[in-house]
């Protein structure tokens, strides 16, 4: 019983670092404002920009995309360089921030 509770808590703990609820949208906002928005904007990129908008996109998709860019399983020179230094928390925070914005 004790073990189950413990493992349950562990599981929860593990999950939480990857769930939208546990991510800090404040930390995500700071990162987005300082880095991502340079190309993607906050709510919307420039009409003339060749970059996709991120606001309101699915959390799981944004998170996966960033992880793939970081791990170079998805190739793009610029994104591989930018995502290369992101931690799991950074990725979750940024994804949660953009997912929560209304485009």
């Amino acid at each position, binding site marked *: 019983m004790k073990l189950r509770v413990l493992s349950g808590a562990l599981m929860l703990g593990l999950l939480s670092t990857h769930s939208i609820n546990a991510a800090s949208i404040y930390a995500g906002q700071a990162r987005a*404002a*300082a*880095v991502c*928005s*340079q*190309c993607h*904007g*906050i*709510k*919307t*990129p*420039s*009409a*003339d*920009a*060749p*970059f996709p908008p991120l606001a309101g996109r699915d959390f799981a998709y944004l998170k996966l995309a960033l992880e793939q860019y970081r791990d170079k399983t998805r190739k793009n020179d*610029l994104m591989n360089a*930018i995502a290369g230094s992101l931690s799991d928390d950074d990725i979750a925070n940024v994804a949660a921030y953009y997912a929560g914005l209304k485009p």
Partner: protein
Amino acid sequence: MKTTKKLLSTSVITSLTALLLPLSAPAKADDAQKMHKLYEENCASCHGSDHGGFIAPGLNSESLKGRSPTALRSIIMTGSFDTLMPPFYGRLSDDEIRGLVKHLQTTPKMANPAWTIDDIKASIKVYVKDESTLPDKPTYQIDDINNIIGVAARGKYGRGSGSKAVFINSVTHKQIGEVATGTAAHIIDYDPANPRWAYVKNDTAEIFKVDLYSMQIVRSVKTGFNGPGLGVSRDGKYIMAGSYVPHNAVILDAKTLEPLKTFELEGIDPDGKMVSSDSGMIIGTPFADIFAIALENAGQVWVVDLKEGFPVTKIENVGRHLHDAFLSHGGSKLMVASYVDSIVTAIDLKERKIIKKLEAGCVPHVGGGSVVEVDGRTLGFGTNFGDCDKMVVSVWDLDKMEVVKQVPVSGGTESPAAHANAPYVAVDIISKDRRARTVQLIDKKSLEVVKTLDVGGHAYFPEYSADGKFLYISAGYSGDEVVVYDSTSLEKIASIAMESPAGIFSHGRVKYMTRGLSPDEMKGAK
């Protein structure tokens, strides 16, 4: 035999060279031409048509000497964070970016390129031939035309579909119109005599005459290559524009935009050197039928009389590297910022002479300036870039012409906003870190910072609505919105989305001349 062989080989080489030369030489010239075109179409509106810099640094063989081509290439690709420099990744190919870097590192700053009165004349475009067909009142609901606020939206790339002047009703905070400006809109000025006309100048020195009633461009003219200088005369009959490239200014007929006279900007600077000069601020004043223009490098202010021949009175030795200015005392006194001396020079436009030079913090950039009447005193507020460790906003008594206080603020500042009915003078903090997101509010009476607003983006160019009830601030760079606050409670009440908004210009400015003064003071002065 030996000789023959030698002759033969020489002739082969000669013929080969003859064959190759006409091919290779133009190919190289083509390349340079192509790179020059790329530069003009992507970089010049900010970095200067002459490669000498404008709102962004000069890019030439001298300024980029010793810089790593790889580092330059990555700046072009990703843009420069915390500045207006956008990422060109995906817009320019890798070959183009490499070519540009090479081109920039080998191209010297160009000599002052010519743009003559004939060029100006030939550049006029007429969009509405017969102005009598325009509506005689606004085609949208607005109680008072002074409630219009114009925002210079730069657009992410300083050009393209995001570059426009956006007009907002500052009572409803809803957009009522916009006009496309091709490259970044920089300055919006209003006709003080006829409420329907606005003049918008972009970063490639084109001026658009805008009909505010129907929200459309009526005419346009290109007055140079770069330079923000623009003023409208008190009777609305003339406009004057000045350029960084080339070094000239021009007076135009406000009705037709026909150029009437050009001025070569040159003169003896305060160190006794004859210099060719960029045009700084140009200002019309309710005080007289004149324009005042600052010659940045020559350190002179010229007063141009709006009469036959447009004669010029030159006021010398105003300061080293002049930039912007604001008016007080019914428009008879002009406060001019001097970057290098870190002073603001007070000029009497009646006597056409210097009254006094006042301390102004560090690299003063006064924006539109602010003047408020507090407890019987006329106080001027001046912002400054604060590149040294002196981060202050200067407050001067404009009657006695003395420094009242240097108010400590959290960073460099660029533009103060005030209004007779609002309790605070707002200043934009521009230091390149998180502080750039903020605007600080100085209490008019205590002359101390009482509140810091976290606006977002690179927050700059605060402006009050004509009634003083609302404070508009551009969340520029990647903020991409104009944020509206209640000027007393400082609660955020609206947001208007646009690309890289910069300068904000209330139509109310024609009523109170300098922001912070009441229209009554203006009447009293006349």
